[in-house]
């Protein structure tokens, strides 16, 4: 058995680590509340915009645009993929799950161009010799509409120049049961997905389009995609924080367990030391008495 001092040091060490994990837990929960509030504020705008854009799609059966309509099952290449990871580790399986999904997409489209958000993903791909877009440098921390728009205009300019023809988004969705990694095609848009939520009750109103549906869509495509990217960033960030909170919670529980066991050992070691000391003293005294 280790000495009482060694165990004491261990206990102190674990208590310090527990302080850190508790603090990380609290930080994650506060950050999450703030980001959620930001998303709530922007939701009415993006919801309304998405509704209008969907309506225009339905009205514009014949309009041809590289962003909007494509043959359902044909994905034009080269493909771009935006992968949202965390900036830091210590978040359970969060990063690993995203990277697994990204690698799955890479086996489907070997020539995929990867746009990575988050330091963790960038490191991972660099270490494994997988090429990523080097001038795409955004942090996953604290997503804002502003950053989402910048990311979006970067992706759009690559789409327009033909560097990529279609765009996938790999992110972690927090809605529903727990965090799930989603791979979603953003561009070209799914015609069937747009139609799926068509409300049959909605009256079909004739609109006058100024100057034309195509031009209007072209004008709002940035905002439309920004809405998706922003909510994906926020969802991923919230998932990351939730994963981190869970990981930190588990770490706290483990620390408590270890502390309980170590404290018991410490008492035992201390008790043992005292007992042996008493035995030594009493046997020494006995010896002295008998030798007199």
């Amino acid at each position: 058995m280790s000495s009482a001092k060694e165990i004491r040091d261990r206990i102190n060490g674990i208590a310090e680590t527990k302080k850190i994990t508790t603090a990380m837990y609290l930080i994650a929960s506060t950050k999450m509340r703030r980001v959620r509030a930001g998303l709530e504020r922007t939701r009415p705008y993006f919801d309304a915009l998405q509704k209008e854009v969907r309506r225009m799609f339905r009205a514009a059966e014949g309009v041809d645009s590289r962003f909007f309509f494509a043959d359902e099952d044909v994905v034009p290449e080269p493909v771009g993929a935006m992968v949202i990871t965390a900036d830091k580790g210590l978040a359970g399986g969060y990063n690993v799950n995203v990277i697994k999904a990204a690698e799955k997409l890479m086996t489907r489209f070997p020539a995929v161009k990867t746009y990575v958000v988050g330091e963790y993903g960038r490191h991972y791909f660099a270490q494994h010799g997988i090429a990523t877009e080097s001038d795409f440098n955004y942090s996953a921390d604290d997503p804002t509409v502003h950053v989402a728009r910048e990311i979006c205009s970067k992706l759009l300019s690559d789409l327009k120049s033909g560097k990529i023809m279609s765009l996938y988004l790999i992110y972690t969705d927090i809605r529903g049961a727990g965090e799930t990694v989603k791979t979603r095609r953003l561009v070209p848009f799914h015609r069937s997905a747009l139609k799926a939520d068509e409300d049959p009750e909605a009256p079909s109103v004739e609109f006058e389009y100024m100057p034309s549906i195509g031009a209007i869509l072209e004008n709002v495509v940035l905002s439309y995609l920004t809405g998706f990217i922003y909510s994906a960033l926020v969802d991923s960030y919230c998932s990351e924080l939730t994963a981190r909170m869970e990981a930190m919670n588990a770490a706290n529980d483990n620390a408590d367990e270890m502390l309980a066991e170590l404290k018991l050992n410490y008492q035992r070691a201390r008790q043992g030391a005292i007992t042996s000391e008493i035995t030594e003293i009493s046997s020494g005294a006995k010896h002295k008495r008998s030798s007199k």
Partner: protein
Amino acid sequence: MPDLFRLSILAADKAFYEGECVSLVIPTTEGSYGVMAKHMNMIAAIVPGILKATLWNGKASEEVRLAVTEGIIKVENNEVLVLVDSLERPEEIELSRAERELAAAKAALQKKSSDFEHSLAAIKLARAMNRIRAKEFIDKN
């Protein structure tokens, strides 16, 4: 009481207005476009510029001007929905800051840079010029 219609103005980061309106003038790709009550159903693209609206608070009308950026306007059965990326009240605009941004955007445009940076700078330029125009317009009146 004048003829009224319902107006909602939404920007990416805030809901600006929701209520009755007398008249509305928006900057579109085709130039300034006016909307009054019982306008026909239409959808148009909004470009950076100054939006003028005469709002009705139940008793009196109040005129507001806003610097807006890209978006769309939808008129449907006497309900008007304005969706813009961002909007600013002229009171919120700082002229000196807008002028600094204008200079920075112009400098960025001059530099030979990638398409992406060029388009970002062009957007910033349009935004800064729009701010200054909105501010000067209000100060004059």
